[in-house]
């Protein structure tokens, strides 16, 4: 605010801001009422994010430090989820494992979906031979199941967190591109696109400013759907020994090796990471479904 602004206008803006906040709050409350499962998923996802961010504060022990005087300790007050064969606290590894899951899940999903958005929009916008060629390329990529494609990529680039992100990102791209393209094809035919062309705007500007914003709904749906899949894929790759490696805390890795070997005598080593993967994927799927129902006009209830 500056001294020259009339007080009435300032008051109006403040009222307007408060009203927007109230409206958002009401909309959120309404969404929670309409989609309670989705809201539950969102709460869990939010919780996971907080756990990942605050891991050093929450985790009671160093997740990678070996403590051989505490090998295979069952759940107790000192170690709520017990310890593993190296004497490491399972809870602390789960807490830090959330970081790996969220990092891989969020980064791979965001990059995969965003690249898919760009490629899908471009394919629909340019059409013709470019679209034909590009879609056949996408067909080739989509012919491979997610896990097979990810395995192939890890085999080429090797193991490690960065390569796992690449391995998960690549198979996501064609899946998002295909969905976004179908929406963008319809948008491309709308009069305002012709108007933008008539104004002499560049292709990049039309795609970025006029097409992409109108296909955000399928993009967001795909993005949320990818999150759960990415976490599951990361866990699968780590379980197969192709993802992140010891001693990095990761849920899939915690299920591998020792957890299998000691499944009978120290079941907590397998149960808690298994639960973490299950709950997080379930939460992301619930949240993703709710987002899809909200953003997809065909699924939106008339109330």
């Amino acid at each position, binding site marked *: 605010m500056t001294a020259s602004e009339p007080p009435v206008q300032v008051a109006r803006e403040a009222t307007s801001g408060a009203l927007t906040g109230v409206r958002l709050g009401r909309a959120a409350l309404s969404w929670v009422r309409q989609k309670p499962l989705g809201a539950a998923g969102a709460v869990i996802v939010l919780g996971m994010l907080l756990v990942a961010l605050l891991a050093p504060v929450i985790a009671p022990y160093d997740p990678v430090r*070996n403590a051989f005087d505490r*090998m295979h300790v069952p759940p107790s007050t000192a170690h709520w989820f017990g310890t593993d064969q*190296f004497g490491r606290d399972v809870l602390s590894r789960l807490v830090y494992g959330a970081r790996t899951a969220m990092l891989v899940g969020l980064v791979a999903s965001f990059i995969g979906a965003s690249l898919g958005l760009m490629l899908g929009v471009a394919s629909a916008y340019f059409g013709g031979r470019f679209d034909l060629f590009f879609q056949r390329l996408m067909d080739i990529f989509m012919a491979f199941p997610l896990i097979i494609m990810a395995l192939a990529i890890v085999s080429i680039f090797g*193991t*490690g967190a960065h390569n796992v992100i690449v391995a998960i990102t690549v198979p996501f791209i064609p899946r998002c591109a295909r969905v976004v393209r179908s929406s963008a094809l319809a948008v491309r035919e709308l009069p305002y696109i012709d108007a933008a062309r008539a104004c002499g705007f560049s292709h990049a500007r039309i795609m970025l400013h006029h097409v992409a914003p109108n296909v955000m709904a399928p993009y967001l749906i795909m993005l949320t759907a990818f999150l759960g899949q990415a976490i599951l894929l990361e866990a699968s790759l780590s379980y197969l020994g192709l993802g992140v*490696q*010891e001693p*990095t805390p990761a849920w899939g890795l915690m299920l591998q*090796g020792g957890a299998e070997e000691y499944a009978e*005598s120290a079941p907590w080593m397998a149960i808690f990471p298994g639960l973490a993967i299950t709950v997080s994927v379930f939460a992301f799927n619930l949240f993703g479904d709710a987002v899809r129902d909200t953003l997809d006009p065909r699924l939106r209830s008339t109330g």
Partner: protein
Amino acid sequence: MQRIQSRIGLAWVVTSLLLAAACGPALAETPTHGGILTFVVPAEPPSFDGHRETTFALIHPIAPFYSVLIRVNPDNPGSPTDFVGDLALEVPEPTDNGTTYTFKLRQNATFADGQRVTADDVVATFNKIIFPPAGVASARRAFFSMVDTFYASDAFTVVFKLHHPSAAFIPALASPFNFIYSAKQLAQDMRWYEHQVLGSGPFIFTEHQPGAFITGRRHPNYHHAGQPYLDGFRAIFAKKQSLRVQAIRGGRAMIEFRGFPPKSRQDLVRALGEAITVQESDWNCVLLVTPNHLVPPFDDARVRRALSLAIDRWGGSTYLSKIAVVKTVGGVVFPGHPLAASADELREIAGYWEDLEASRIEARRLLQQAGVPEGFRFKLHNRGVDQPYKIVGTWLIDQWRHIGLNAEQWVQPTGPFFQTLRSQSKRFAVSMDFNCQAVVNPLLDVSKFVSNDRSGINYANYQDRVLDDLFDRMNRTPDTAEQRRLMRRFEKRALDEQAHMLVTLWWYRIIPHRSNVRGWTISPSHYLNQDLSTVWLAP
């Protein structure tokens, strides 16, 4: 050397008596023919060439297809002195003051394609092993430094001439990796055997499905009468240990020849009772940490020494033995052997000190002196095999954290792992490696540590002529006391002064197998006695 051999022999007699007492009823049984042996293998062979490879992943599925010139006695495989002929009729006594060995070959041995095995095949094989042409890898070339020349004196006689008498020659010759190849195939392509199988062993290669299995069927014209007893075998590749244990537990496999940790033994015995038989032995196998001397800061002996000083070997022996197939603290020589260092001698070497705290303070000082910053990051290259590679790798990373080093594990499957190790480049900074030998023969087993232009299996990329000289002198002197003295100097230089490679813990072998598998006896090496010619299945 003779004194050493007699002491080993005495130890062996005692062990044999104990084994005989334990296995008495089994030994008394008459072998029966028939059946397919199924066994699990934790990794796939990097290639099919025994002369080039050093891994069980090759021996277990591939050795049954090949014969060797001489071998350890299959009924007495733990002995370092009991050798018998395989293609040779017998192990000859040396002549010319111990410098000439004349081997008479069996005349009934044939390759799987029907060609007869002759002296030319043996000569061509050892030419490839001892004098490999450029571009052909030979892992045991250094074992034969005493060999001057060899030739076929007739179609079924091979003569070896040595530079000097050597007690290490016969054990080196008995290595199970010395597969006899066809001279005809080698003449066409020296590397043919890397991708093909053609031997004169008890079994004939039938199928390899990469990632799944290798199968073999009985060689109908095998040169040992009545053998093999099995109709065939199926080697199933199963990388995960839990899978291999479950395969035996569920009856999908009868045995795994490498070894399980104590926990798996307990699980199998608890689940299967008398259907499981357990054989145990010390293991002539040790994991080494191999710093790449081409990659700074590991080209600095102070940094390599610091890596060793950080490791709590004595503590590790106690707790790692509960979860991994490692147990014994030792130096470069198989623990318990007369040439091995005593506990007191070991405590003089960096990384074996009694005071761990002082050791780690010294490690930090050395790192600081070498200019390595706190929190320095590097990758520990490791093999994608759980036992004991990944477990020991995880342990080492924790040990190095105590001196402010941050290592990250970089795991590769067996094939690519060896490619990286052998690259003679800067592709890895520090790698896990191993020194697993067949016949316990420390004078040659330590060839791993000699310069990489002499040893085919030194992957640390260094030349150390002082070590080479000590190695040569050890192998030339017949005086056992002098051998021992030289071995201590060799050990001190390799592990302490230069810390070229770091010895971790020696392995302990536990083989729980289905009780109907007979005719197989455990040895201190998972390479020995693996041609399966004497194995049979009880009904």
